[in-house]
């Protein structure tokens, strides 16, 4: 299998192309996904390749966009519905959590909803409070949904393919700040399974569970710590629903220390669930409390100087690990 270096967004785009090529039931709708290729160019070239029956610009109407996907999916098609910015979930939330996610269960299993929602999350672009959020904790709290947060070009491709092939409603949250990040990506189509974490770096002294864009930051921190002889294991859950608790717990039982890092505000973030599970499953192995590093309890600010202080980074991850290791 040939592997190239590719950007995160190009890898995602290739996944979209290949998923549409392999299955004529896959179609894409959303605001400016066709002619413009999506405001982040996630969907470049799809209109030309698959035509305006399968790649469609919509009015600004997120309830209708997601709802159309639900209805079409219930009839066996495989819609990809784009939400542009994750912050817009609020205008479509009912269709996501009350309809898409619950339909199968409410209907006693009579239907499947193979709907994929794509969106872009994360701060760091001075886009302020309504265009910078990380809301994966909301989505992960919804039975029936699956939630992916690719943190590498490889996963950007593999998770969108996996999501489209999945018979359940899935949400793939791209990271705006990672669009240009490069990494190895196989040419052929492949799916990354939901619920399988990656051990992105092996280590023995502490485990960092890094969500989405925090992965490269955690890896940078681990590199720094390695220079001081501190060996850190870094885990990328890749999907937070389902969550690969086993990989995480196995690691923490080995390292005895865990730090969870995410961009969302700490209170009620996905880190809370991960921390709760770790202490439930690895209580006797822990040499320190499970630590969390996340955004302060405030909306995302506009000023770069505030935003930089808001989003965790390698330096603060490093610090947190050191603090955790001080304790025994």
């Amino acid at each position, binding site marked *: 299998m040939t592997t190239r270096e590719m950007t995160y967004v190009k890898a995602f785009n290739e996944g979209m192309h290949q998923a549409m090529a392999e299955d004529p039931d896959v179609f894409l709708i959303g605001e400016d996904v066709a002619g413009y290729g999506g405001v982040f160019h996630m969907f470049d070239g799809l209109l030309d390749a698959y035509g305006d029956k399968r790649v469609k610009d919509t009015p600004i109407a997120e309830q*209708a966009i997601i709802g159309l996907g639900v209805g079409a999916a219930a009839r066996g098609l495989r819609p990809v519905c784009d939400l542009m910015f994750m912050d817009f979930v609020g205008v479509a939330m*009912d269709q996501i959590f009350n*309809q898409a996610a619950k339909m*199968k269960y409410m209907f006693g299993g009579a239907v499947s909803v193979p709907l994929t929602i794509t969106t872009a999350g994360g701060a760091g672009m001075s886009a302020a409070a309504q265009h910078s959020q990380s809301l994966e904790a909301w989505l992960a709290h919804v039975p029936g949904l699956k939630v992916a947060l690719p943190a590498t070009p490889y996963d950007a491709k593999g998770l969108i393919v996996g999501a489209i092939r999945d018979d359940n409603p899935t949400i793939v949250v791209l990271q705006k700040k990672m669009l240009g990040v490069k990494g190895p990506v196989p040419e052929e189509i492949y799916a990354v399974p939901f619920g399988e974490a990656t051990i992105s770096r092996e280590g023995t002294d502490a485990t960092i569970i890094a969500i989405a864009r925090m992965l490269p930051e955690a890896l940078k921190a681990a590199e720094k710590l390695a220079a001081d002889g501190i060996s850190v294991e870094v885990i990328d859950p890749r999907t937070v629903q389902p969550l690969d608790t086993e990989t995480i717990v196995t690691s923490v039982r080995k390292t005895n220390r865990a730090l969870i890092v995410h961009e969302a505000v700490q209170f009620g973030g996905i880190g809370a669930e991960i921390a709760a599970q770790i202490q439930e499953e690895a209580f006797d192995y822990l040499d320190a409390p499970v630590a969390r590093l996340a955004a302060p309890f405030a909306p995302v600010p506009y000023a770069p100087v505030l935003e930089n202080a808001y989003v965790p980074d390698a330096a603060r991850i490093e610090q947190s690990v050191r603090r955790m290791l001080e304790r025994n």
Partner: protein
Amino acid sequence: MATPTEAEVTPATRELVLDLHRRMVRIRRFEESSGKLVETGEMPGFLHLYVGQEAVASGVMSVLTDADQITSTHRGHGHAIAKGAEFRPMFAELYAKTTGYCKGRGGSMHIVDMNRGMLGANAIVGGGIPIAIGAGFASQYRGDGTVAVSFFGDGATNIGAFHESVNMAAVWDLPVIFVIENNGYAEFTSQERHMKLTDIAERASSYGIPGVIVDGMDALAVRQVALEAVDRAKRGEGPTLIEAKTYRFFDHQGIKGMRIPYRDPAEVEAWKSRDAIRLIEAIGVERGLASAEEFERIWAEVEDEINDGIEFARNSPDPDPADILDDVYTV
């Protein structure tokens, strides 16, 4: 907007009259029976009964096939039954049994019958409308000649999902029919208190599609406008907004009387005097298409079907809590 005149109406054949009558009687008796069963506590949950509005579901459904899709509301039994749902799994669902349409997971507000294109009742006002345009999108995408129909109330036309969905269906000429069942009230709030329009069909003009008003107590008239809308949809000309003027005979929920006097008893009586079932019986008899005895036989047959359904439901097994996590995901 157009209201079809008597002349334009589909010829009321014997077959058609009996078909519409049976659909309506099935709904009526199902609703009355289940209302009582919840009242006595034999069945759990709560019910939004369709009694009074039978002509709407029946008239529309009489022009659809099982391959056509519908979405429904909290007041969904009538739509399911008119679409052909069977009493056994209907009652079993209300009785919360594994033999129910939703295996006892959904209850009254989530009745579904995928085999008959009934895409589900919905407990969120307006929640089914976007889903219907998705079903219609699938029809267009596949070019299979089917249509999708979304039923909802006057109150639902004030919610955002209605607006977004009708506009999107219009822009893409989706084969979707939007049926407003205007019973004059959103719960206890009358139409003039929730909008400034008398005829909600006027809202069609916001989307550049036809809006049609029809007498929702006249199943034949409803059938006629539905037929035209379906034809239009199948010709690729896009959606139609139908407003059926109708009335619910019971309260918003359950079979008890009204807790507050939000409806004038004279208004209720006036509508009851136009009962859709009596109307079609009168038409049938007057035009010599069917006899009173034939209609009686339908009532009797439906009664048997009701009893059979209840019996079946009573004797069906409860769900097993051990299965509580089944069907959250497709695996």
